[in-house]
C-alpha cells in the first residue's frame, strides 16, 4: 500500500464487509418487517461501495496522493506509542492499584514525556495534581474513584 487513500480505503472495505456479513447474521428481516440487522446492513453495504471507490480512485490521480511514510516523517512517533502504552496500563491497573497510586505514577511519567523539568519538580507537580483531582472529583463531586487493594 503506497498511499494513504489506498490503505485506509482497504481498511474500511474490510470493516464494511464485516458489518454487512454480521448484519445478515443478526437478521435482515423483510421489507414488511425489517430485522435488527436491516439498517446496519445498508450502512455496511454503502461503506463497501464508498471505500471501494476511494480505493480505486486513488490509483487514478496518483499525483495528489500522500505516501504513508510522509505521514510520520520528522515526528516523534515513539512518544505517541509510549503515551498510549501508559494509558492502557493505567486502564488495567486502575482498579487494583487504586486511583491515588496509579494516577500519581501516570502523571509522573507523562510530565516527563515532553518536558525537561527536574525530577523534584515533576514529583511535586504529580503529587499536587493527584491530590487536587482527588479532592475535586472524589470529595467534592463524589465520583467514587477506585480504592484499590491497599484500601486507598
Amino acid at each position, binding site marked *: 500500500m503506497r498511499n*494513504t487513500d489506498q*490503505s*485506509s480505503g482497504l481498511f*474500511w472495505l474490510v470493516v464494511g464487509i464485516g*458489518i454487512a456479513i*454480521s*448484519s445478515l447474521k*443478526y*437478521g435482515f428481516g*423483510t*421489507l*414488511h*418487517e*425489517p*430485522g*435488527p*440487522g*436491516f*439498517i*446496519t446492513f445498508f*450502512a*455496511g453495504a*454503502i*461503506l463497501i461501495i*464508498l*471505500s471501494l*471507490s*476511494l480505493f480505486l*480512485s486513488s490509483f487514478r490521480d496518483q499525483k495528489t496522493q500522500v505516501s504513508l511514510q510522509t*505521514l510520520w516523517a*520528522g*515526528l*516523534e512517533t515513539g*512518544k*505517541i506509542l509510549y*503515551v*498510549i502504552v501508559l*494509558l*492502557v496500563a*493505567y*486502564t488495567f491497573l*486502575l482498579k487494583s492499584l487504586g486511583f491515588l497510586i496509579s*494516577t500519581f505514577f*501516570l*502523571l509522573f511519567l*507523562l*510530565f516527563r*514525556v*515532553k*518536558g*525537561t*523539568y527536574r525530577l523534584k519538580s515533576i514529583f511535586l*507537580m504529580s503529587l499536587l*495534581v493527584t491530590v487536587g*483531582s482527588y479532592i475535586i*472529583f472524589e470529595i467534592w*463531586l463524589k465520583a*467514587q*474513584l*477506585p480504592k484499590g487493594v491497599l484500601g486507598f
Partner: protein
Amino acid sequence: MDIFHHIFFGLGVALQPVNLLFCFTGVLIGTLVGVLPGLGPVAAISLLLPATFRAPPVASIIMLSGIYYGAMYGGSTTSILVNIPGEAASVVTCFDGYQMARKGRAGPALGIAAFASFIAGTLAVVGLAFMAPPLAAMALKFGPPEYFSLMVLGLTVLTFLAGGSMLKSLMMACFGVVIGNVGLDLITARPRFTFGLDILLDGVGLVPVVMGLFGISEVLLNVEEKLSERKIFKTKFKGLLPNLQDWKESIWPILRGSGLGFFLGILPGGGAVISSFVSYGMEKKLSKHPEEFGKGAIAGVAGPEAANNSATAGAFIPLLTLGLPSNAVMAILLGALMIYNMPPGPRLITSHPDLFWGVITSMYIGNLMLLILNLPLIGIWVKILKVPYPVLFPLILLFCLIGAYSLNNNPVEIGLMLLFGVLGYLMKKFKYDGAPLVLAMVLGPLMDNSLRQSLLMSGGSGTIFFTRPICLVILGVVALILLLPVLPLISRIRKTVEKTEEN
C-alpha cells in the same frame, strides 16, 4: 406580544440563582477551553456531561450551552495573541487579528472580537426566539418517513459542508450509523455488534467516543509534534475599546456576519467554522480596501467573530425544534436531553417551556457575562496561555480518564475512549472528519426506528418516501447534493471519451 411574554418567562428561569451560577460556570469553562489550544468545546462538554447528571436538567443544559458559546469567545484570544486558534472556528481570526497585534493593536482587536461576538450573540438569540416556535409547529405534522428523510438530509448536508473529502465523510457517516446501533435491538431484544461484552448491550456511550475522537486524538497529535516556543506579545493592553474609526469599519461586517452565521448555523455541518470563513471572504470582496485583508484589517476580525457566534445560536434551532443535531456539540446536547428524559423535538417548546425559553434567554445573559469576563480579565487569560504544553497535556488526559471512568465506574469505558482516541488520531492523519461519525452515531438509532416504522406504515413498500410530498422534496435535495460533486466528473469523462473518439 406573545414572544415578549415568553422571553420574560425565560428571563425568570434564567435569572434564578442556581441557573445564573451554572451559566457563569459554563461561560467561564468555555472561555478557558477556548483559550487552551488542544482542548475544544466538544471535548469539554463531553467531559463535563457526567458531572451534570446529578444537577437540575435546565441548569445543566444552560451550563453546557455556555461552554459552547464561551469557547467561541475564548478561541479568538489565542488567535489574536499567539496566532494559534484555540478552536477551529477562530482560525480565520488569526489572519488579521494576529497582524493587528503585531502592529501593536492587540487591544482593539480583542475588543472588537468581544463586541462583535456580543452583538452577534444577542441578535442570534432574538432570531432564535422568533424562528423556533413556528418551525416546531410545522414539524408537528412530520411522521416517521419525514423524519427519516430529514435525517438523511442532515447527514448529507453535513458531509457536503464538512471539510475534506465528501466520500470519506460519507464513509464516516455510515460507520457512525453502525456504532449508534450497537447494543440490544429495541424491537427484537437481540444484541448487535456487542462482541460478547455486557457493557456494550446498552450501546456505545457517546461520551467515550467523543472524548476519544476529539480529546485524546488531539493530545496524541500534539505529543508527536516537536515543541516550538509559543511567542506571546508582551504588549500592555491599554485601550481595549475600539475607536470610532474602528467601529465605522466594523459595524456592517458585524451585522452581515451575524445574519450569515445564523443561517449557516441552522444547516448541519460545521456551522461556526464555515460561517467564519464565508464571512471573511465576503468582507474581503465587499471592502473598499481588500488589499488590507491579511495585514490587519479590523473588518476581517469583526465579521468572522460575529459569524461564528451567531452560528452557535443558529445551531440550536434544528435541535430544539426538530430534535436533530447539526453538529457534534448539538449531538452531545441531544444525548444529554435524552438522559434527562426530555427528548428534544417539536413538542419540547410546549412540554418543557422552562427549558426552551430558559436556555435561550440564558444565552443572552451568558453573552453579557462573557463581555464582562473577557475584557477586564484578559490579563488572566493571557497568563493561562503561558501554561506550557508538557504540563498541560497530562492534565487534559487525566480529565478524560476520570470523566470516562466515572460514567459507570468501569475501566472498560476508558478502554473504549482510548480505542476511539487512537481511531481519531489515525482519522486525522488520513484526513477523515470525525463530525459525521458522531452525528450519525446519535442519529443512528433514530434512523433505524423511523425507517422501520415507515416501512411498517406502508406495509413494506419503499415508495412511501416518494409519495409523501414533504419527503419527496427533502429526498430530492439529498439527491441533488450527492450529485453535485459527481457532475464535474461526468463532464470530464465525457470529454475524454470525445477525445478518444476523435483520435
